[in-house]
């Protein structure tokens, strides 16, 4: 039954635990992007992916986990990403609204007038 208790469950909280949370958020977001048909759901998935990356940045930057770390770069990137995510969400929501005005729906599956 050794596989039931991998190291990550027994060792003290360190970098890998944060990375696991980040990876979990990333996968959740990616699944959300792939399965949701509602534009707002997809945008939420994108936010999850960005935040998963942010957790990675902050964890990699922490001096408490590793001798060599990403340092201030990581914190700064996380801050910039938060701002950018807001800007991107604003634009995407405006575009979704514009789409709603034309189609009276925000279901991406209904967006099939253009065929690739």
């Amino acid at each position, binding site marked *: 039954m050794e596989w039931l208790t991998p190291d990550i469950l027994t060792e003290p909280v360190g970098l890998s635990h944060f990375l696991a949370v980040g990876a979990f958020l990333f996968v959740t977001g990616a699944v959300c992007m792939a399965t949701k048909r509602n534009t707002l759901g997809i945008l939420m998935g994108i936010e999850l992916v960005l935040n998963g990356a942010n957790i990675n940045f902050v964890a990699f930057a922490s001096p408490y986990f590793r001798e060599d770390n990403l340092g201030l*770069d*990581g914190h*700064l990137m996380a801050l910039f990403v938060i701002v950018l995510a807001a800007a991107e969400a604003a634009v995407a929501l405006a575009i979704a609204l514009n789409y709603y005005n034309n189609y009276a729906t925000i279901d991406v599956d209904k967006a099939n007038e253009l065929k690739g």
Partner: protein
Amino acid sequence: MFYELVSQLSDSTLYQSLPAFGVELVLCATIVIMLLCRIFSLTEKIDASYIAFIGVIVALIVLSPMKPWDVSEALDGIEIASPVRVPLGDLPSVEIFTGMLVYDGFAVMIKTILLVFLILFFAFVKITKITRTEENTDFFTLVLGATLGMCIMASANHMLTIFMGIEMASVPSYVMVAFMRGKKKSSEAALKYAIFGAGAAGVMLYGISLLSGMLNSAHIPTMAANLADIMSNSPDSSQLFVLGLGAMMLMVGLAFKLSAVPFHFWCPDVFEGATAEVNAFLSIASKAAALALLVRVAIGFSVLPTPTETPVAVAESPAVIEAPADEAELDANRFFLVSDEQTADDIADANVEVEAHGEEAVANSEELADPLSQVRYFMAMLIGFIAIITCTFGNLAAYAQTNIKRLLAYSTIAHAGYMMMAVPAAIALSAESPELAQAAVGGLAIYIAIYVFMNLGAFAVVAFVRDTSGSEEISDYAGMIGRSKIIAVCFTLILVSLVGLPPLAGFIGKFAIFASLAQGYSVTGQLYLLVLLIVGGLNSAISLYYYLRIVKVMTIDPEADDTAPMQRPLGMLQNSYLLLMTVPVALLIVDWEFLNVWVTGALAHLLVP
């Protein structure tokens, strides 16, 4: 102490970074001026497009290379050189803003191409009157904002600026696609573009977080040095796996901007939904910046920053680092994976593993002298593979298209594939002969410069025909020769040039890229370069068919009853604009040495210090 720190920082910012950041500052200032003009209701009197035009001219003037402040002098805090114009070839590569951006000939060259394109693009938009005068401020703000992002992409030297640049170029583009309000198709196209783009950016950011976390830095030259360290200390397979995963995720974002297969889905839909003018912007400016960024990342990871910093005496051959994953899985890891299995299977045989490592070290002693060679191989294979499928898919899918904008979208995808082919050649050559690698990047730059005229001309034809006949279907081009000779002739020349047949300009670009592939093969003996060359040649032959189909429709097919009629002949301005685009395409073959000289000068210090 504190005072010195601040004064050093402000000196390096004021006297070194900001002068080299002039283009971006001018673009920002132009955007602010345009918006202020609208706040004070001046836009009724002053057309915003003229402000934007003047802004771009000023940016071009500022761009012409100034001698950046020598770092050592600036740090001493006393000597402040006056800006001296130096020839492009003497422009050293200077990191500005503490390494966030880099200012060198390559950046200057790409920015020049972008700004010249913008001037032609403004004329195009002015002629077709795509925007009403009161909307001009919005539209030109978006255009300049996207260009600002592209300038940052072209000089990115840090993972943060890579991401910021891509986002700053993408977000305004989403809005530009949606700019035709009330048109159903354009809102759908914008929605698809925004969602694809945001998703790709998210994946890319995650990849960046993995890469920079593993390499303990987000500054590309430092990352390259750290990667060389890791690669020379026999990394274990999990390290290589994470690095490879990060590199591939980073590649997702780049491939999206390049519209490379398999991240090209947005391209045909967006091109069909958006107006021809916006298509021209997306297919030229956006692509040029993305290619510049690809070159930056590829070269940045393949070259160790400065010889002295390198732990081993490797500095001579700038190794390529970027893509550790695939090759790691394929080749480098062949060994490590084996040893891993061994450890898993019988732990007792630790000695065997050590031996194995020892053997490998002996066997790969040459490899170890160049810790980045595996990375280089992986990177070249990854980019080369994407280039092959992009190019082939774009050309094959273009066959079935009936809408001219969709066809040009697939043509854009195929051309992105051709242009990407230069990058593996540059990567492979960077270790053996930096000069030749620079020449490979130079071939790419020549291609981009020519592509500006070809694609702008093609989309100008599409826009002018749309304005007079209201149609964008290829079948409505039937009998064009009888209705407008100038469109038929110019479009034919441009299409043949897109195929890459001599004596038109497209041939020069393709020749430059294929020549660097052939040179790469003969110097390094890497087989994949030969494969790329053959695939590129075959693809040019395939593309002949669908480009010439349009020519056939225009010249041979008779005008059918249901062909959309042209309401009026083209105006003076339209005709002269078409000629302005076509003449360089037709006549560049006469003397293109100046282009070559310019590009060679600009790239003189990309790899060779």
